[in-house]
């Protein structure tokens, strides 16, 4: 019982920390290129521990992220819950991939999510997108191996299972 609750704490802490990273005060030119920390963290946990991180967890995280970043309520909630859904469906296959293969999967998946995100943002007001808006996805995919190894180390260190 104790181990289980401490495991949840580690997961929530890492999500909290990733949200902190995503609103760090980078200047706008770099901030646009920062990877989607929260989404990648959520993806790691839902692939590694699908029984712990449910679609509901993804949805709530997304909702909090919406409020935090001031986007339309529901935008990230939708994207995050779709992400957890696909991680749940594909986790057994994804776990057998090499890390770089996972990164390629994530690249294409995040491109789709970015497109969805763009559509939703357009509801509010036209968004000027340049190459950076899409380059951000590539950077997220490139950073995946690092996030993967850090979070795996955290998971093993604190025996989250």
């Amino acid at each position, binding site marked *: 019982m104790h181990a289980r609750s401490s495991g949840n704490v580690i997961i929530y802490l890492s999500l*909290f920390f990733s*949200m*902190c990273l995503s*609103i*760090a*005060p*980078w*200047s*706008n030119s770099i*901030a*646009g290129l*920062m990877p989607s920390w929260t989404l990648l963290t959520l993806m790691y946990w839902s692939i590694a521990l699908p029984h712990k991180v449910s*679609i*509901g967890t*993804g*949805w709530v995280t*997304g*909702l*909090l992220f919406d*409020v*935090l*970043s*001031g*986007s*339309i*309520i*529901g*935008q990230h*909630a*939708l994207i995050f*819950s*779709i992400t957890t*859904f696909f991680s749940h469906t594909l986790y057994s296959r994804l776990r057998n991939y090499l890390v770089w293969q996972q990164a390629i999967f994530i690249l294409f998946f995040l491109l789709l999510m970015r497109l969805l995100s763009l559509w*939703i*943002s357009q*509801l509010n*007001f*036209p*968004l*000027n*997108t340049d190459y950076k*808006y899409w380059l951000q996805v590539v950077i997220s995919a490139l950073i995946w191996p690092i996030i993967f190894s850090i979070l795996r180390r955290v998971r093993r260190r604190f025996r989250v299972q």
Partner: protein
Amino acid sequence: MAAAVISILLLLLAQKTDYLQRVKDGLSLVVHPILVIVDLPAKTYDWLTENTRGRAAVLEENRELKSEALILKAKLQKFNAIEKENTRLHSLLESSFKIGEQFISASLIKVNLNPNTQQVVIDKGHRFDLHLGQPALNEDGVIGQIIEVRPQTSSIILITDPNHAIPVEINRTGLRTIATGNGSKNTINLPYLPHNADIKSGDLLTSSGLGGVFPKGYPVATVSKLTPLQGEAFMQAEATTIAKIDNTRELLLVWSNQEPIPLTSTAAVNTQTNPASPDAR
């Protein structure tokens, strides 16, 4: 599946109504610690630089501030007289005139919530009666307006955001136009100037007060580049903003009083010039 449906419902609800404002306010209290934590390093740095300065430096600054205050007060004496006179003249013309504005100061929270827009976050919200569309200034000029109010914090959209436009007036000629942001850091565009407009590089743009969001007369930008385009209806003009967001930590939020002034002298003048006109109230 259910999560997706609920998300889409929320999206539609947020789009069409403002029922979700309450929920948003409540949840923003939950995520407020994240803002505080991210702002912490910058705050600590400020605190350290404040507290590790020598006595000599503080005394020096104090002396400078005192002399500055003296000069400003001296200017204000004259300003009061001029304002009185201006009000009196306006009342003679029977044109409504806005009385002085109220300010509240707020400090920036060093976070970047949405990199695709040009916004900053300040440490005051509902608690201080801030409202949507409230103009924000710093000591140099106009910075932007409030785009979202939360209980503890608010977001301000800068005048340089591509989705922001501010009605301005060229100080030298009184020509009115609209300045829109272009997404770059310190410049704004003037896209609606005809080729024969009387404007030159170095002209000061002040807020014109049209539109009712920004109070009249605050400096916005100086014209920096004019490029007449052959065959286009409008010329391309660029202006550099006067208030720089990079070197501000504190800014001011304005409440402008939009009532026409009920002056006793107005009534007196009115009855003198036209005794037959009935009293307004």
